[in-house]
């Protein structure tokens, strides 16, 4: 092999090594980047180390393969020399007829060698085409993209974790705590029937825990249902919120406004004071010279306090508080003896005040038991505060007896207002893992109401909730749907 030709061939060999490195490195990086990107986008599942290993493997395999493919052949080198230096195929002919004899062939060989000797290796340029530049750039760009692109958002929200299983001791501890709550209920001063309802729910919770195979999520769901049921039982038993919503006029009478507000919070002392004020007010309004005015005053009180309750189908006629208020109103109507109206009013209030207060006290006790049970269960099972919409008493429409929702983004953490079901105060935003919006941090109740309904109906279907509450729950959600549609 001619020495000068060897120099050119060596340069071409170096060029091929550089090209080889560029291409094989690019292929390796491309392989890794594609696998890494697909894994990040959760199209496939691939360990990053495996991706790196595959990339390295592709690099080595392609390097070896390209080494033999791109290895310069003598004829190719000769062709490049002839083309670049315009040698009219001298070098190619020399290579093609290497080893052959003949006068002209020898002369041709000598001529080619002589021409080669006059060429400078520096003028022989390495050739890299467009692809040798583009492929590494693309590979690098893809690599940077795959590294910097954030992982799929879906995996941040819902990740399937293996179920957490409680130890037996933990489960036993929960059961003991619930049994303590049962004892508390039984020792409370609420009605026996109500006690039975609460105890039944707590026993059902114990049964569900025992049947849960100690799975944390199952136990948690059962506890949530129990809390909900306890609150429903309380709402059914207590009519204070219902009555308060019905009787409150649009800032007509300050006493009645105050009465309805404090009726919700079951503030007995204040209610007692308000009833005294009502009595004083009625006595003041009585004008012996104007019997019609008295009539009017009494009629007004009666129409507000009693007729609205009576006309509403939201309160049962058997409700004790309703009966107590109705008795007060009916007795006041009978005070038509002008001469004795003051004592008559006094007598009526003396008689029915106690009745009303007694009922409110009963409801207060029930509410206390409810609050205690809900608080304890929430602490025990780490239940986050969830509530449905609470009626804002500022937006109640008395003319059509409809409930309206005030959808605000403020959460009301005052336990006195967080009654579950209906209540006064601002609307609490519902939250649900299935519809939680990680970007906003909250959601409108309209967005979650369907899920709440479906969840609770599912519990009914599974038999986790007593069927006797189904109608009530459906009625409750129907009202919520109606109010939500009105809000839209």
């Amino acid at each position: 092999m001619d020495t000068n030709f060897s120099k050119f061939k060596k340069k071409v060999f170096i060029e091929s090594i550089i090209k080889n490195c560029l291409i094989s490195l690019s292929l390796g990086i491309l392989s890794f980047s594609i696998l890494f990107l697909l894994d990040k986008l959760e199209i496939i599942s691939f360990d990053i180390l495996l991706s790196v290993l595959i990339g390295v493997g592709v690099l080595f395999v392609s390097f070896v393969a390209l080494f033999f493919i791109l290895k310069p052949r003598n004829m190719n080198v000769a062709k490049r020399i002839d083309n670049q230096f315009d040698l009219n195929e001298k070098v190619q002919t020399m290579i093609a007829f290497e080893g052959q004899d003949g006068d002209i062939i020898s002369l041709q060989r000598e001529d080619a060698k002589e021409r080669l000797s006059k060429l400078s290796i520096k003028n022989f340029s390495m050739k890299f085409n467009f692809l040798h530049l583009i492929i590494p750039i693309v590979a690098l760009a893809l690599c940077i993209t795959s590294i910097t692109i954030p992982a799929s958002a879906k995996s941040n929200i819902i990740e399937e974790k293996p179920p957490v299983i409680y130890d037996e001791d933990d489960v036993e501890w929960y059961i003991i705590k619930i049994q303590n709550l049962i004892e508390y209920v039984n020792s409370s001063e609420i009605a026996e029937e109500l006690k039975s309802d609460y105890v039944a729910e707590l026993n059902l919770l114990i049964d569900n825990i025992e049947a849960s195979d100690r799975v944390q999520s199952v136990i948690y769901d059962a506890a949530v249902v129990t809390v909900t049921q306890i609150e429903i039982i309380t709402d059914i038993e207590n009519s204070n919120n219902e009555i308060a919503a019905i009787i409150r006029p649009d800032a007509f009478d300050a006493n009645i406004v105050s009465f309805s507000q404090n009726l919700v919070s079951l503030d007995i002392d204040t209610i007692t004071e308000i009833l005294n004020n009502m009595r004083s007010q009625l006595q003041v309004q009585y004008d012996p010279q104007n019997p019609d005015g008295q009539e009017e005053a009494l009629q007004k009180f009666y129409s507000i306090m009693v007729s609205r309750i009576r006309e509403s189908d939201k309160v049962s006629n058997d409700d004790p508080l309703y009966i107590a208020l109705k008795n007060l109103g009916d007795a006041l109507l009978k005070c038509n003896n002008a001469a004795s109206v003051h004592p008559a009013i006094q007598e009526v209030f003396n008689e029915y005040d106690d009745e009303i207060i007694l009922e409110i006290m009963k409801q207060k006790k029930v509410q206390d038991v409810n609050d205690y049970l809900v608080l304890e269960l929430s602490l025990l099972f780490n239940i986050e505060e969830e509530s449905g919409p609470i009626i804002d008493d500022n937006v109640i429409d008395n003319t059509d007896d409809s409930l309206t929702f005030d959808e605000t983004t403020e959460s009301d953490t005052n336990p006195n207002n967080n009654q579950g079901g209906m209540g006064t105060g601002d609307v609490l935003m519902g939250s649900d893992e299935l519809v939680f919006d990680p970007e906003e941090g909250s959601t409108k109740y309209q967005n979650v109401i369907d899920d709440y309904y479906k969840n609770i109906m599912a519990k009914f279907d599974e038999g986790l909730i007593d069927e006797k509450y189904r109608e009530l729950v459906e009625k409750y959600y129907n009202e919520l749907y109606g109010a939500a549609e009105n809000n839209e």
Partner: protein
Amino acid sequence: MNNIEQVKEFSVLINKIKEEISKDVVGQIDVVDNVITAIIAGGNVLLEGVPGVGKTRLVRSLSKILNLPFSRIQFTPDLMPSDVTGTNIIEKDENGRMNQVFQKGPIFANLVLGDEVNRATPKTQSAMLEVMQEHKVTVSNVTYKIDEPFFVLATQNPVEQDGTYPLPEAQMDRFMFKLIMEFPSITELTSIVNMTQVTMDETANAVIDGPTILQMREIAKSVPVLDEVLVYAMNLVTNTHPEIANPSDTAKKYIKYGASPRAGQALITAAKVRALMNGNYNVSYDDINALAYPVLRHRIKTNYNAINDRLSIDDVIGLLIKETKR
């Protein structure tokens, strides 16, 4: 002189020939080069040019330089084949007896100029063309060989085609080259006039002889040809055919019929000579491309599309060269 020295001397001799020719023929560089190439390669040339451009002078000058007998045949419509080849005549010998003697025709020369061959009848044309091919004459069952090297330069007048007998394409194929002798430029014409004012006779000197030409011919045969170059030449010839499986675009559009295999032989044979003439010892793509014009222009028939697009035969050959991949 051994072979290597002879090979090295090849281009020197050629340059000397060209130098001597330039004393008698002004310009026409390509024509002169190709004529010399054809002589050494063993081919014949069809020369086309208007009267007075130096066709006869070129051949006369060559005959002096190459030290070879020269004859000129002026073809006319009444020229008979025997006028070309020769014929038997009755001759009285010294004893008074009548003997039949073969009188050699003008074809019996090393360099023959066949002027206006298209004026001869086809029969007479055939007689000459047969001799061109066979290098021998057969009369009355007696064969007379023509001395080597034998070279015919036939001419055609591109004007005055009326009453002529154009050579058929099959006959044209026997010519290695078709060369076009253009009208000289002003400068060349001035030189011609100045030169011929001194003397009309050829002043070139002998440089080589017939045996040397034959040696050069043999040397040229040994010039190596790269396979890629050979394939390229063959592809070039094949691309002249529109009827093959995958014809070239040029052939499809502009060619009626393409070149025969003789074109391939002519290309390579002439390319070898050309390489040596230029001081190279191998055939290159440039040699093939340069010789494509004289080799193919009389072997390809263009169609109406070429006429419509105002493409000459050389233009079409140029397109073929561009289209043929190396």
